């Protein structure tokens, strides 16, 4: 059943755009974090949130969320290409976005702290008596960190307006989730915090979106957090240069048959809302947009040695004696 055609087509377009952009970025940078095959989770999670809601997407696949929040493809490319016009001007990798878009930046390279920072955004929303909410996503690997436990426990104890989404792609670099925990389902951990835990098919964008929207309604109504586990699969290595030789090719091939974009296109074709030609047009348009944006960003100025920002450490300067 496709209830809101316009909305589903929009999510399809975003997933295609994410795939095309990700493939192009992987070609550009050996250190890019590929998100191919996981698009349904960021798109389904962060689609349809209000401008005053706070988004804290997992780093893998985050650029599509930045685009959803109003960043342009050219700006994303400026980051990927390390241009002077990038947000952060070369001070960080590109998976950060302007804070004014209500997207929490990835500040450092360690995983987990953003879960409690997002919980802090929800705390601020409560403090200000706003009905805005926060959504944060992170990987299955990150869910084994103490940060996850402390943050979800606190968010639950204080019934904060936040949705915690585990983007379970089965692999934390070379560590499979089966060896990282004895838990059968990561969503089951919610019971330990006294909040609802929901496991969804993370390669079904409508299932993800429906579950997250229900959790958002609960949060907005003051009923506290929900923990959602969206099960998907990391189709490539941890970074573009990682050949993932540590895992069986059969596992990857099995998941290739569950590709979230192909599945959505088949469903939309069955429902008669997106023909094969229509779908082709979406892919072609995305390829053109991504290519044009890259070409435009390549003309942007390069980072300068003076961009180190020696005098820009503090917001409140020290008074001279």
């Amino acid at each position: 059943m496709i209830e809101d055609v316009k909305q589903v087509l929009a999510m399809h377009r975003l997933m295609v755009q994410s795939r095309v952009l990700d493939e192009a970025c992987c070609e550009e940078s050996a250190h890019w974090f590929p998100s191919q095959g996981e698009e349904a989770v960021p798109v389904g999670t962060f689609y349809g949130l209000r401008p005053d809601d706070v988004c804290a997407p997992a780093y893998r696949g985050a650029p599509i969320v930045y685009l959803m929040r109003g960043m342009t493809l050219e700006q994303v490319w400026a980051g990927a290409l390390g241009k002077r016009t990038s947000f952060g001007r070369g001070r960080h990798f590109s998976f950060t976005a302007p804070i004014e878009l209500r997207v929490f930046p990835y500040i450092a390279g360690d995983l987990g702290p953003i879960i409690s920072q997002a919980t802090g955004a929800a705390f601020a929303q409560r403090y200000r008596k706003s009905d805005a909410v926060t959504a944060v996503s992170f990987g299955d690997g990150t869910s084994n960190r103490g940060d996850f436990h402390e943050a979800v426990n606190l968010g639950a104890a204080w019934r904060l307006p936040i949705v915690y989404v585990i983007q379970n792609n089965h692999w934390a670099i070379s560590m499979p989730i089966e060896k990282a925990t004895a838990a059968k389902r990561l969503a089951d951990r919610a019971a330990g915090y006294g909040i609802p835990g929901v496991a969804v098919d993370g390669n079904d964008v409508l299932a993800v979106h429906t579950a997250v929207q229900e959790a958002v309604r609960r949060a907005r109504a003051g009923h506290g957090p929900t923990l959602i586990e969206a099960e998907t699969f990391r189709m490539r290595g941890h970074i573009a240069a990682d050949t993932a030789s540590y895992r069986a090719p059969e596992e990857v091939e099995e998941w290739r048959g569950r590709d979230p974009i192909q599945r959505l296109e088949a469903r939309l074709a069955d429902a008669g809302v997106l023909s094969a030609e229509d779908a082709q047009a979406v892919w072609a348009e995305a390829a053109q947009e991504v290519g044009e944006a890259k070409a435009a960003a390549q003309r942007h100025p390069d980072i300068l040695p003076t961009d180190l920002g020696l005098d820009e450490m503090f917001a409140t300067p020290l008074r001279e004696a």
Partner: protein
Amino acid sequence: MPGKRMTFVEALVEGIREEMRRDPNVFVLGQDIGPFGGSLRSTLGLWEEFGPARIFDTPISESAAAGVCLGAALEGLRPILDISFGEFLASAMPQLVLHAPVVHWLTLGKARVPLTIRTKVGEGPYGGHPQCFEAWFTHVPGLKVVMPSTPADAKGLMKAAIRDDDPVLFFEHMYLYHGVRDVVPDGEHLVPIGRAEVKRPGKDVTVAATAWMVHRALQAAHQFAAEGIEVEVLDLRTLAPLDTATLLASVRKTGRLVVAHEAWKIGGLGAEVAATVAEQAFGSLRAPIVRVGAPHTPVPAHPTIRRAFLPDAQGIADAVHAVMKYAA
């Protein structure tokens, strides 16, 4: 100067209270800071005045508490995070050193982190949680680190820290908490972050010290006055960024430097102070620089070995004697 006498901790709480009255975005979050009144009475009276809308008792989750404060700061609030004891900072290190200090620089100034983190260190009435790890944090770009020694500075620096738009780590010495009572000026009293202060002028030797060691240095200086040796006692107050101008001016005048802190000597702040002076005022030195700090063992529990461990006025006096052996 008109003022009223109060203890170090009373001055701290008064500073927080005034800033909370002034700005509704200021709140306090931490363990046992509500009806309990804070460990060692660090928040006494705040719960009664501001209640659960502004004072937030947390579970034992230092890392999440720090992350929540950082997130709230990114959303424009001005959190005061109360980490009961400095030893527990270790549990929140990612937030405190990898995340909070980086944001302003990383975002080209678009995001700010007006976060005050207060914590207790050093020898104290119960002797618990005494370890002094402040030097760790002076190594981190983007953090401001303060450590006052008097009630007036405690209040003035606390108010400055809360109004500051950067993360400020505020070390409160437990021996001083209830052990020092002094005059705190009336009215709007702010002490600028980044400024050391000469607590006692002298011409023969500079003793640069922090927190409790400032008092022990003053005690030693008093004894030396009888011997005709004029010791200048410099309270560093802000540990990062260091007030090198005041430090260098003092050493250029006296030509001799002793650095004293309760933390371990090896890798301590004294090493940075000594290196700064050696680099920038070598020509003014008339004697080698001597550091006074704790020996390289964990802080022991029993009072007998605790006394053997802690740097004291005698240790500072020995260091002053050592540098005074070098004639002008």
